[in-house]
């Protein structure tokens, strides 16, 4: 399509020579509010026409940007320290699939809204709705991916985004005898799954990995029940004590890695 041609990336500044095609741009998901989501497609390095499509989402909420999946994890390019050039990721997932990165919801990264109140009213439901609209419209722009095997992946709070979008797609597909969004499955990593069990498991991890003392472990267990969306003040104090006085200066996202 013409729009597809307009979205083609000739080359990114500082980029090494590559054999795969890239596209990026905006898809409007809500005309009334002026919400538009930014995507970046890095096609498979070989045989792109036959390989599946993978949509990657990150966490937050508010952090599903191209800083993570695309530039740190599964994308073909990593950024050097000065932000002046790119180098190749040897284990990029576009060796096996066409990878579509999405900055979601509106307000994250380059994705935007013309209605500023949208930034204070986002949540799971609208994020999933907008992502579905994005996908339907994106496949109109890139019809070669209609009916192609399609997967969704992500990490952290994408434990919400990914299954919620999958559920929306399944419901949408009920209207078609042969759905063009050919969703086959999803994979999620370190994913937020259940507020209660996640928190019980998190505190258990802190204790079994000697990140907190026995006393703090007992204090958290006695003050927290993790059944409400927000912790009670005594529970929060016990958790804050662990983080501020016992964790030390570590990278909580990778406990044996030196802090940045």
């Amino acid at each position, binding site marked *: 399509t013409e729009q597809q041609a307009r979205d083609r*990336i000739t080359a990114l500044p500082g980029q090494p020579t590559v054999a795969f095609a890239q596209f*990026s*741009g905006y898809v409007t998901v809500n005309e009334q509010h002026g919400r538009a989501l*930014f995507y970046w497609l890095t096609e498979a390095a070989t045989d792109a026409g036959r390989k599946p499509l993978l949509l990657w989402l990150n966490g*937050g*909420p*508010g952090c599903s*940007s191209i*800083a*993570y999946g695309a*530039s*740190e994890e*599964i994308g073909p390019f*990593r*950024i050097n320290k000065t*932000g002046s050039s790119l180098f190749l990721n040897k*284990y990029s*997932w576009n*060796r*096996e*699939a066409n990878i579509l990165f999405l900055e979601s919801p509106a*307000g*994250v990264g*380059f994705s*935007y809204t013309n209605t500023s109140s949208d*930034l*204070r*009213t*986002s*949540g*799971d*439901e609208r994020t999933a709705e907008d992502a579905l609209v994005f996908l339907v419209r994106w496949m109109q722009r890139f019809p070669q991916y209609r009916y192609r095997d399609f*997967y969704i992946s992500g*990490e*952290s709070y994408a*434990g*919400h985004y990914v*299954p*919620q979008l*999958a559920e929306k797609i*399944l419901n949408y597909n009920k209207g078609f005898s042969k759905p063009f969004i050919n969703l086959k*499955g*999803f*994979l*999620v*990593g*370190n*994913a937020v*799954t*259940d507020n*209660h*069990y*996640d928190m019980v*498991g*998190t505190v258990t*991890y802190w204790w079994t990995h000697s990140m907190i003392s026995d006393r703090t472990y007992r204090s958290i267990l006695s003050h927290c029940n993790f059944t409400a*969306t927000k912790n009670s003040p005594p529970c929060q104090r016990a958790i804050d004590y662990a983080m501020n006085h016992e964790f030390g200066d570590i990278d909580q*996202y*990778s*406990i044996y890695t030196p802090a940045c």
Partner: protein
Amino acid sequence: CTESYAERYYNRRDVQGAMHANTTAIPYKWTACSDMLLKHWGDTQFSMLPTYKELMAAGLRIWVFSGDTDSVVPVTATRFSLNHLHLTIKIPWYPWYSGREVGGWTEVYEGLTFATVRGAGHEVPLFQPKRGFRLFKSFLGGNALPKS
């Protein structure tokens, strides 16, 4: 630290031009995370477990993995949660391999595969790119992770 490199790169005008980004002059800088969205996030589903049940019933391929050095959403959090799906074991717990090393442990259930990734933090493909890629290949192929 790599997050700060992204902030430098994606705020360059020439990068934004090459990516057809920021065409409407967004009134704030590109950032990796939006604090505004995080602060005001509205509805959030307390548990995704009912949704998992629905999606498994629909026959989707579902894999859940966990880097075992993350303390934010750690492996025990995921295991405690998945445990409450009461899944039937198809292939019992075993270590999987990547490049002659244990890549982690895995168990295959009816409708869901769980795998840990050894030595990986929250962002598994960043900390263990080779193991993360191996996992992805097995997922795409619909194959269990290698036993040797």
